């Protein structure tokens, strides 16, 4: 089979001491041009939701306020995702450069990196980088300051409005949207919240130009992105791959010859069984054929020795623990789904009961307040419907 899986090296490659020099060349351009490049490139957020980055910056730029903020979301908590840690460790200048671009375009003077507590070991190095960054900004007469804000161990704080609540000294409970952070964000001021990788991608788009960027990937899902590959694979790690690859190609490259299923997008994503590898492509919805999947880049491979029941129970454990408990469908639903599959497995409930649980997960999708509760159904229904026998016997 001809491999169309294409490895690139955009995000982490050819990193040098010239990064800030390149940044200052960009900063001398006018904001509209930078925005135009970003919009033109079709770059979408790498944090999972896939919102167009250029549009996000534009909305914040148009909001009228003396104070605006740029927040780098480094709370990376989705099971199976570890690319943001790697980016912060290996190419921190590019993250800061992306933040500085966003600041220039929106008119923000203050930025924060919301770093998950689990990544405390990165702080010293990042702090040193910040000192250098601030010194260089100052000598170029640019008013922008970035601080690290430490999380304290809560997956939900990766959700952008929960993150803002957390930074404001409140419980990390998601807010209603709208209003969106671009108009009403940190301390009620216009705020751009971007994933670590998105910020680097934005910088790289301006660097290579939208045309070059669009040559990567396929229409509707332009560019490449970092994938975190783990589980039953001989080569776990981080890979920069062009969008539009099929899962069959992916498994050919990364599988151990016995791959039964791939979890795409972490516990909040979808579990794809072997029989669907050929028809599944990785990219954002729209512009792709077959079943296309959006993703924050988590790819977990499972081989035939794994119990899909154990895998699902592990996810449900995770959600039940990490639900902020603010709204009923999610708080109670996560518990019920977990108790439910356990009861079926033990034979305390009929297999029929799984259908009721599927309905419950659908209800959670419609009625939950934020993405956590809304996405439990993704893994739940994809595992229960594709591996029903394993749930029962």
């Amino acid at each position, binding site marked *: 089979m001809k491999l169309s899986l294409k490895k690139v090296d955009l995000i982490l490659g050819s990193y040098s001491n010239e990064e800030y020099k390149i940044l200052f060349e960009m900063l001398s351009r006018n904001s509209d041009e930078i925005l135009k490049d970003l919009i033109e490139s079709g770059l979408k957020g790498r944090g999972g939701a896939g919102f167009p980055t250029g549009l996000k910056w534009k909305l914040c730029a148009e909001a009228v306020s003396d104070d605006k903020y740029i927040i780098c979301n480094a709370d990376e908590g989705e099971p199976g995702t570890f690319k943001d840690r790697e980016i912060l460790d290996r190419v921190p200048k590019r993250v800061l450069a992306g933040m500085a671009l966003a600041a220039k375009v929106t008119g923000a003077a203050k930025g924060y990196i919301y770093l998950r507590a689990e990544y405390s*070991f990165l702080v010293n190095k990042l702090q040193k980088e910040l000192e250098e960054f601030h010194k260089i900004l100052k000598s170029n007469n640019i008013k922008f300051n970035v601080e690290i804000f430490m999380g304290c161990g809560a*997956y939900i704080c990766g959700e952008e409005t929960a993150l803002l609540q957390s930074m404001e000294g409140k419980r990390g409970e998601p807010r209603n949207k709208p209003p969106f952070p671009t108009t009403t964000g940190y301390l009620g001021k216009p705020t751009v919240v971007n994933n670590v990788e998105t910020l680097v991608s934005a910088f790289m788009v301006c660097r290579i130009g939208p045309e070059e960027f669009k040559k990567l990937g396929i229409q509707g899902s332009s560019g490449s992105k970092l994938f975190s590959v*783990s589980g039953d694979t001989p080569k776990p790690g981080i890979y920069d791959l062009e969008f539009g690859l099929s899962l069959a190609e992916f498994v050919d490259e990364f599988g151990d010859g016995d791959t039964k299923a791939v979890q795409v997008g972490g516990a909040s994503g979808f579990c794809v069984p072997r029989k669907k590898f050929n028809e599944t492509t990785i990219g954002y919805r729209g512009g792709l054929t077959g079943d296309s999947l959006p993703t924050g880049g988590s790819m977990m491979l499972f081989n035939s020795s794994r119990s899909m029941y154990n895998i699902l129970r592990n996810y449900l454990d*995770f959600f039940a623990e990490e639900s902020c408990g603010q709204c009923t469908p999610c708080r109670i639903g996560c518990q019920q789904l977990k108790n439910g599959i356990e009861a079926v497995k033990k034979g305390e409930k009929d297999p029929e009961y799984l259908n009721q649980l599927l309905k419950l997960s659908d209800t959670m999708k419609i009625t939950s307040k934020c993405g956590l509760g809304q996405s439990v159904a993704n893994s739940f229904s994809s595992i229960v419907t594709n591996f029903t026998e394993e749930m029962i016997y």
Partner: protein
Amino acid sequence: MTLVESTVTELTLKYGKERRQLLPILRGVYEKFHYLSDESMVEVARQLDISSAEVFGKATFYSFLSGSPQGEFVIRICKTIVCDMKNKKLIVDTLENLLKIKMGQTTHNRKFSLCYTNCLGLCHKAPAMLINNEAYTDLTPDKVRQIITSYKNR
């Protein structure tokens, strides 16, 4: 001034008394005492001029802030799916045997606490754990024994 009062005062001098400094302040208190006592939360509330229920609500939300005394070294073992598949059970058994405590407990000398945590973002090197801020990966029972010995000698 009690030690709690002076610690909180130091932190509010460093960070300021605005509500948005609550998390950094609580982290600071935690780092000093290895837990958030009721007394310390009331003191933070007093100095920030907010209700102690608000402080309590914030503190209990986060898994890295504990309301009960923790050891000097908190060992957090990832229990999420990839580490689970890569035999984290063996690592847990090894640690429980070495430290003679169960998951969720603290040794008598208050040196070590054992607990589970969710995905540490080190899945490509599973199984993984944190000891305070340090990450340890690709764990085997032998490796765990060496690591614990080095901490016991600290």
